[in-house]
């Protein structure tokens, strides 16, 4: 069923692009479809991973790897999360847990998750994510390698994680029979660095006032692009965005823009179909100019010290460490992008992010950025009360308006 879904998606997107109906989002979605196809092909060696795993390294070793939350987001976007969440309820997985992880667990029970060759857990960003990987390893009876991502780069932390990643490569090699080819790894890291460079250009363009970004363009972009790093496709997708944004900036200086409010979106988007982004654009003239995870916080990876570079990259995710790091990063984004306000969709089961709601509020308020906290479930559409959310958004926009006046 999933194979068919992704094949159709790929074919449809490819046809649209071939017909001259391309957009950066279509290029991005095409890669998502291709990844989905590889995951469900039954041909590839698959690894289920945590969010901060080095996907480019795994790709070099012939492994199709993906963070498990991708499946949670996918079933939400296809409107089928409810069935899987119910399955998780059925086995006694408390509904107080993150719904990404509950959906993944339900999907695994229902046979919707392809059996992996192995799993790579990461201690960051959340305790729940690592726990679900342990459960999947037990369920699939496959080996689990755990990467302990230290909280920061101090002391010997980078070397410690780099060594774990070396061990991980050995673990993968033992299980797959494929040893790490240094030449191929260097080539992949070349693509990673190239994509990084172009993604930075994309983000810089997005900072322009008015911004060339629409509310949908960069939804989930940063976090999902991590899955394509190390490939030419990642560079291609990033370039498609860069060129399109550059074009829009040229045109908007000629034609004007109706952007009135600039918004920062905290953590992840709402994964099921919902009218929030459209409503913000059409009724509120509000543009989500930046998402928290749409940023590059790591230096280019030195081809002569690849593991250290990969380690630094995994440590650099803003969700890592104390909330002070995260707030500092949010404050920087808010200022760089000149935002008028921030929206924080507080996913009910997320201790890592939602748990820090009050602390994030304080940090952004300190630099004069108001935050709208939307208490919600980002995966379970059954709990979404559209009217209520839109009313709260409108009130928030009015408040921003009065501040501007």
């Amino acid at each position, binding site marked *: 069923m999933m194979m068919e879904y992704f094949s159709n998606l790929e074919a449809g997107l490819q046809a649209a692009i071939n017909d001259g109906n391309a957009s950066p989002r279509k290029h991005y979605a095409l890669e998502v479809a291709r990844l989905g196809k590889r995951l469900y092909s039954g041909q590839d060696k698959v690894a289920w991973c945590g969010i901060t795993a080095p996907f480019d390294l795994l790709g070099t070793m012939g492994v199709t790897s993906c963070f498990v939350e991708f499946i949670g987001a996918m079933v939400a976007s296809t409107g089928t999360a409810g069935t899987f969440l119910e399955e998780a309820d059925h*086995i*006694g*997985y*408390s509904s*107080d*847990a*993150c719904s990404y*992880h509950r959906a993944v*667990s339900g999907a695994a029970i229902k046979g919707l998750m392809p059996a992996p060759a192995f799993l790579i*857990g990461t*201690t960051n960003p*959340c*305790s*729940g994510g*690592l*726990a*679900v990987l*342990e*459960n999947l*390893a*037990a369920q699939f009876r496959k*080996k*689990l*390698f*755990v990467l*302990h991502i*230290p*909280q920061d780069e101090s*002391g*010997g932390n980078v070397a*410690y994680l780099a*060594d*774990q990643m070396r*061990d991980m490569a050995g673990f993968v090699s033992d299980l797959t029979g494929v040893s790490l080819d240094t030449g191929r790894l260097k080539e992949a890291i070349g693509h990673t660095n190239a994509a990084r460079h172009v993604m930075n250009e994309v983000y810089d363009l997005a900072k322009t006032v008015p911004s060339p970004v629409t509310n949908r363009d960069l939804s989930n972009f940063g976090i999902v692009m991590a899955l394509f790093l190390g490939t030419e496709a990642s560079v291609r997708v990033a370039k498609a965005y860069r060129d399109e944004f550059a074009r829009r900036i040229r045109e908007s200086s000629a034609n004007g823009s109706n952007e009135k409010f600039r918004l920062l979106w905290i953590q992840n988007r709402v994964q099921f179909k919902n009218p929030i982004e459209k409503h913000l654009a059409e009724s509120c003239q509000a543009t989500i100019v930046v998402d928290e995870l749409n940023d590059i916080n790591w230096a280019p990876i030195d081809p002569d010290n690849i593991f250290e570079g990969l380690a630094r990259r995994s440590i650099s995710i803003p969700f890592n460490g*104390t*909330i*002070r790091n995260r707030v500092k990063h949010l404050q920087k984004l808010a200022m760089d992008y000149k935002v008028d306000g921030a929206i924080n969709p*507080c996913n*009910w*089961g*997320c*201790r*890592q992010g*939602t*748990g*820090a*709601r*009050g*602390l994030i509020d*304080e940090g952004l308020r300190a630099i004069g950025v108001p935050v709208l906290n939307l208490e919600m479930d980002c995966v379970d559409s059954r709990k979404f009360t559209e009217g209520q959310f839109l009313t709260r958004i409108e009130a928030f926009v009015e408040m921003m308006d009065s501040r501007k006046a």
Partner: protein
Amino acid sequence: MGKSNVIGFACAYTPLALIHASGFMPCRILPVEDCPDQAAQLLHDNLCPHVKRLLDRAMSGNLPELAGMIFMNSCDAMRRLYDAWQIVRPGDKAILVDLPVTASESAVGFFCAELKRVAGVLETWGGTAITRDKLAGSIRLYNQLAENFSKLRQAVQNGGINNGPVVLQEACNMASCEAPEKAVGQLEALLADTGVMQPDDGVPVYLFGNMLPEPAAFALFEACGARIIGEDLCTGSRLFKAIEADKDGDIFLDLAAGILRGRPCARTFEGSQPGRLAGDIVEEAKKQQARGVIGYTVKFCDPYIARLPNIREALKNGGIPFLFLEGDCTMRSVEQQKTRIEAFIEMLR
């Protein structure tokens, strides 16, 4: 050293011997006092009541005078508590100690380096320099405490102490808040007082979970007809464990290995044996000849939430009846489940 020599802590993975070796006294901050509910100003309602109640205590100033606080990075919630603590008590010295989730060789090496960092920090907080001898002495002292606890547990099993489980929990709470020298002495006094009696006729039950520091909860289990013949709780047997220190090796490494390789709670596991916790609980319950198992965890605890389905299934497959209780670190929440506990015990008879 300043006015206070007390270092607060909140997690069973805290290196108590290290704190003691620096001349400080570790004191567990338990989620027990009745303080106004204020934590929600900074921490979301979806965080576990353990950390919220600790923050309530901090916000109400309901704490012993502290020279500093040591937080272990055991889970997302504990990390958020560390963050919030700095806001509500900016004057407190506080450190967040990273805690690996596995006990692999490299994880133990990392944790060893973390413990050395803690030693340095304790010194800057006014502690004395930690020498090998001092640390070895503190480890011996805590080992003595662990041994006394094993004996006390045994005495409780044998019915040698009146109101045994309640006394045991009171002793645990006392030992986690008092100097180990004093705790060792108090336990010895208790042990000297044990008699030889028949264990009561309660139904043997094994208990696991996280935060259950209320002695009254153990009285309630007894009143419902249960005899707790073994437990694996953060506020119980998991706190004081013997640590083997090699005479010649790096003693910090021994301490790190001892802490990480003790009986794991839900947040610690082995990649090579995923789901092991469930098997361990079944094995322990069988070994102790429990007729049933009670799991008690506080709400919103991700490490346990995620493992419970497997635990439930393993117990079912092992033919061991299971009662799961979820609480909020108050006696009230345990009492509300009295009827369920009674019915469970009745079913086991």
